């Protein structure tokens, strides 16, 4: 069952600008969906249509089974929104703001305050409930905003850049909170430019560009797809070059370098013998000992066994590994790749 479904959803503004172009999107109930896209890609317009702030030009969108155009008030009751800009009244306290929102959603009077208190406990803002919103820190404001957005127990919660400008600790607290809310049954739609955040939290990611959905998968699925497509691109390029003349040797080398994956290890007992062993390993193309003691390697990224074999070599020569990392394609790479492809198509 889908919490949100759009079919050919389109929004053309008065100045003939098509902000959303026949968007088809399905967000499963109970999932955390990450909505990515460059600025001006149509994310905000999509959210505005889904939250019934503007009318679609054509197409259809349903939220929790209700049509946004036919039953806007039912849709509004199902939705909670934590906007990027904290939009609570600065002069009112956290409690007063939450009460105001509860009354605007028609929360029954007898359970209003207890519901708010429970939510405050959940997000850990109860200690500041009688503080004015204007006096809160950034993280506290977001928490207050969350409480106000959850008072009517929405099935679906929109979070627009909820952690922007927050310190790493507060960010993590909010991430935990988002997961907890999801466990409690809220479907969450997270708009963010923080790729790490999306990668960590989301079940599914949709990338929107120029009003269209250009990629939709799990975060890992998207990254794997990019790795595959990179490999393919490189293989194609290499075979093309080898067909050509001999002088492009240097160019070929450059491209081969691109096909290498970075790997970095830190050994407890580093000595020349171990380094020698590593550099003779089949999969290792280059070895460099950095000033901080890390051994930075470039290994063949086409070979799935490369990491395993290098580690085996180190261990068999007596090396004790204290730290290791390899560089994988990030969601950011996926983002840049999928949004630039369309841009190039557009220009063509």
């Amino acid at each position, binding site marked *: 069952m889908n919490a949100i479904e759009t079919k050919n959803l389109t929004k053309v503004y008065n100045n003939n600008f098509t902000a959303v172009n026949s968007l088809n999107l399905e967000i499963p109930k109970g999932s955390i969906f990450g909505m990515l896209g460059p600025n001006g890609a149509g994310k905000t317009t999509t959210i*505005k249509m889904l*939250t*019934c*702030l*503007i009318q679609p030009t054509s197409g259809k969108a349903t939220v929790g089974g209700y049509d946004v155009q036919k039953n*806007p*008030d*039912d849709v*509004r*009751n199902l*939705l909670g*929104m934590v*906007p990027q*800009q*904290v*939009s*609570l*009244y600065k*002069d*009112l306290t956290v409690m*007063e703001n939450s009460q*105001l*929102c509860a*009354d*605007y*959603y*028609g929360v029954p009077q007898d359970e209003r305050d207890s519901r708010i208190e429970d939510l405050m406990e959940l997000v850990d803002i109860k200690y500041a409930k009688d503080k*004015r919103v204007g006096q809160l820190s950034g993280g506290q404001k977001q928490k207050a905003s969350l409480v*106000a957005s959850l008072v009517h127990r929405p099935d679906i919660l929109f979070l627009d850049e909820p952690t922007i400008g927050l310190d790493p600790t507060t960010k993590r607290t909010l991430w935990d909170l988002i997961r907890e809310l999801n466990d409690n049954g809220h479907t969450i739609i997270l708009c963010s430019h923080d790729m790490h955040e999306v990668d960590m939290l989301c079940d599914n990611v949709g990338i929107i560009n120029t009003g269209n959905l250009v990629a939709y998968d799990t975060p890992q699925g998207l990254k794997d797809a990019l790795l595959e497509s990179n490999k393919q691109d490189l293989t194609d390029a290499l075979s093309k070059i080898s067909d050509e003349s001999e002088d492009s040797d240097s160019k070929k080398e450059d491209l081969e370098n691109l096909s290498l994956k970075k790997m970095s290890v830190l050994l407890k007992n580093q000595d020349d013998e171990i380094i020698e062993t590593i550099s003779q390993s089949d999969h290792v193309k280059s070895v460099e000992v950095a000033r901080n003691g890390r051994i930075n390697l470039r290994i063949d990224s086409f070979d799935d066994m490369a990491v395993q074999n290098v580690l085996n070599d180190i261990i068999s020569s007596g090396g004790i590994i204290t730290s290791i990392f390899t560089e994988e394609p990030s969601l950011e790479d996926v983002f840049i790749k999928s949004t630039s492809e369309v841009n190039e198509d557009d220009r063509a």
Partner: protein
Amino acid sequence: MIEPKKFWWMIKKELISLKRHPARLVSILAFPIIMILLFGYGMGGEMTDLPIVVVSQSDGDLTDLTLDTIKSTETYHVVEVIDSLDEGKERVDSGEVKAAIILPSDYDKDSNQQKGVTLYIDSSDQMASQILESSTQGIFYRISNMVASQTSVSTQDAHIKPSISHSLNNFKDDISLHINRIYGNIKYIDFLVPAILGMTIMMSCMMGMGATIAGERETGELARLFMTPTSVSTVIGGKIAAKLLIELVRALILIFMAVLLFNVSIKGGFLQTFIVLVIGALCFVGFGIMLSARTQTQEDYAQISLPFSMPMMFVSGVFYPIETMPWILQKLAYVFPLTYLNDAMRGIMLKGQTLGDVWLDLVVLLGFTVLFFIIGVKRFNRDV
């Protein structure tokens, strides 16, 4: 559907904000007082104590009488009585005094010859010179009647020399003019205050609506309200209710201050004045909503509302009667709601009319109000 709880929240929110920002409260209270003081004292006051010198080259009973009369007139502040004509002129030229009243050497001589009193005046100060001319004429007219002898006053302009002096020959009592003031003795301040009240309400309603609607659109509070299952008219209705309440308090302060400071009489009674102001406030709140329906920021709103509020201030007969304006402005005045508010306010405060007497003004104001609200709510954009 009217949702009283949502209405009440908007009022409560405004009141809490005011309570927590005492400075804002002070400015709400101070604004009408400043307006009344500024316009009341600045423009409505009468000119008194204008500095002059008297050049007296004669002496005798008539001279003494004349000097006493001049000194006891409120319009003048006699800096000094001197006998040098040149010094007198010099003092006017230097700007130290506004005029010199020059009594000639033959002033006290008992003769049938016409006596020429000269008013040497600084005509660059138009307001002061007009008042000095007319009151000097008045004085010598009275004196000449008293002594029943021929005295003439000529005015000499200090800045156009040699002066064209026009003789102000005294009239004989052939024609007597009886002035029958149907509404009593009305001073300019009395004329001004009712319209100042209207204008202040207009300005604060229009400015205030921009702050609440365009401002909250800009900062996103309005978006939050619009995401709840609440109709546009309920959201706006709440804003109006809150704004109106504050404006009513302001209107009360305004009326109170006008009475206290300028002893303005409210002939038609306090309640009727208040009701007219409430209708006016509603109308301008509606105007504000219409203008802010599609403005995205407070800054935009300020830019958009200025071309409406400024002309309205000057064309709606606040400071001058509409009839004295060029015809095009007169026509323009008829499409400005402030004109009708001013007319109704003057009717009630000055003429002692009743709401029934100014019904036409009220109907027009209410008509504008309904029109503004319909356009405002229709045009209002939920998109924030």
